[in-house]
């Protein structure tokens, strides 16, 4: 089993509980061993950068430094915001020796040093690139046949990571959904923003963004929206009620983490992937 330095991030310890358990269950099933970093700290999401840029990179670097100490090669984050922060910080550590020197001066206080040598990855990349579609297909016990899934990429898993993927029309999520037997639907908003922390700082704007996304997925006859980030998941799932109140809609589309859908296809028992209530709403959504 290949080992990975695993950075769960704060959201997985609170609102993203179903993501936490399903990520671990599916990883176990696919031979991906996630070793949680010791004593990691918050990555800052989008809230450090408005205060101090160097501080933001330093706090992210502490996690990278802890990961480097493990001797493992990959730093894996399941949250798109954690992923983006770790990915860009790691890149800057390598390309900007001056920045790295400032950061390392601060890290001395925790007996840490950082080089920027981790390979920073989102959990979905590990499944796709290291395990591979073929291997996943082989392990599927219950193909999600006929399930129309709207793959929701959100932002920070594809942007600003310009060098790697087609940022306008990525396809890897669709391919993963096909590998577990589901039917990925095409819809224009798949990489439009869910509003992120605007749900707190500018509720009106965020609800409008969520509303457009939900409408687009529903218009495309999706049975369920699949997410790769706890923030997206919360905005699309928990705030559906408020969207309905504001816009007079009657959305009740289930929102699930990609790991939960994978878990269902792999035949992992529902409680280990946090699908109980979601299963019920999924059934209702398919009946419609």
């Amino acid at each position, binding site marked *: 089993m290949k080992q990975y330095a695993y950075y769960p991030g704060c959201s997985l310890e609170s*609102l993203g*509980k179903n993501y936490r358990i399903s990520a671990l269950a599916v990883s176990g099933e696919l031979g991906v061993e996630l070793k949680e970093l010791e004593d990691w*700290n918050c990555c800052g999401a989008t809230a450090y950068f*408005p205060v101090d*840029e160097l501080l933001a990179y330093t706090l992210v670097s502490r996690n990278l430094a802890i990961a480097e100490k493990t001797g493992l090669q990959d730093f894996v984050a399941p949250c798109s915001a954690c992923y983006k922060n770790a990915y860009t910080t790691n890149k800057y550590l390598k390309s900007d020796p001056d*920045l790295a020197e400032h950061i390392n001066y601060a890290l001395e206080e925790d007996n840490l040093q950082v080089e920027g040598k981790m390979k920073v990855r989102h959990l979905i990349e590990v499944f796709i690139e290291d395990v591979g579609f073929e291997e996943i297909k082989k392990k599927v016990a219950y193909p999600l046949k006929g399930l129309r899934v709207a793959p929701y990429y959100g932002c920070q898993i594809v942007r600003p990571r310009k060098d790697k993927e087609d940022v306008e029309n990525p396809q890897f999520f669709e391919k993963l959904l096909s590998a577990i037997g589901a039917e990925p639907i095409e819809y224009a908003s798949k990489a439009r923003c869910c509003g*992120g922390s605007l749900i707190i*700082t500018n509720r009106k704007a965020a609800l409008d963004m969520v509303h457009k996304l939900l409408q687009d997925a529903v218009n495309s006859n999706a049975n369920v929206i699949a997410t790769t980030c706890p923030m997206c998941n919360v905005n699309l799932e*928990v705030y559906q009620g408020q969207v309905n109140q504001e816009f007079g809609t009657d959305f009740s589309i289930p929102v699930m983490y990609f790991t939960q859908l994978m878990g269902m296809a792999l035949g992992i028992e529902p409680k280990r992937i946090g699908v109980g209530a979601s299963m019920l709403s999924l059934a209702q959504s398919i009946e419609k």
Partner: protein
Amino acid sequence: MAAELSFSKEIENIMYASHGKPIKDCIQCGTCSGSCPAVEFMDNSPREVIGMIGANLKEEVLATNTYWTCASCYQCSVRCPAGIDIADMMYALKRYSMWKGQYKEGLIGPDFSEAFVKMIVNSGRSFEPILAATYLPKYSARDIIREGLMATGLVLSGKMPLLPKKVKRLKNVQRMVRRIIPIGETK
């Protein structure tokens, strides 16, 4: 006497690690504004703000809600034909406005960011209920009730824990932070 820095240079100077092109390379094409999912909630579109920076309209830029309405989705950054990292520029403008202590009245963003950083300095981890105290006072009564009901539901369904977690080597983290920015006494 040293020449006064242009506003666009001032902003570029606080985009420390950004690898984007200088703001003055903007050709005012409007791709950023057309790509922005939050533009209709902004006082000025991203294109306008860049134009305002170029024209040294400092007070006007400090008074706009534009950068506090940016969700950091990077759609503008990846599409900008001039190669400017506009989302990063929005962060720089947030820092500039925090640093000047000057921003449009009624915004939640500045308080939220400040509270977030304080929370990390005090515990090392983020935890939603602590943050609620920073924005709830600015919500309407209806929204506070709505928020309360939702939070109760999340706690009851086991999705929201009642106690935050902390980093173990918190003292070290706090000393680390002090090497970057001066912070006062921590709890």
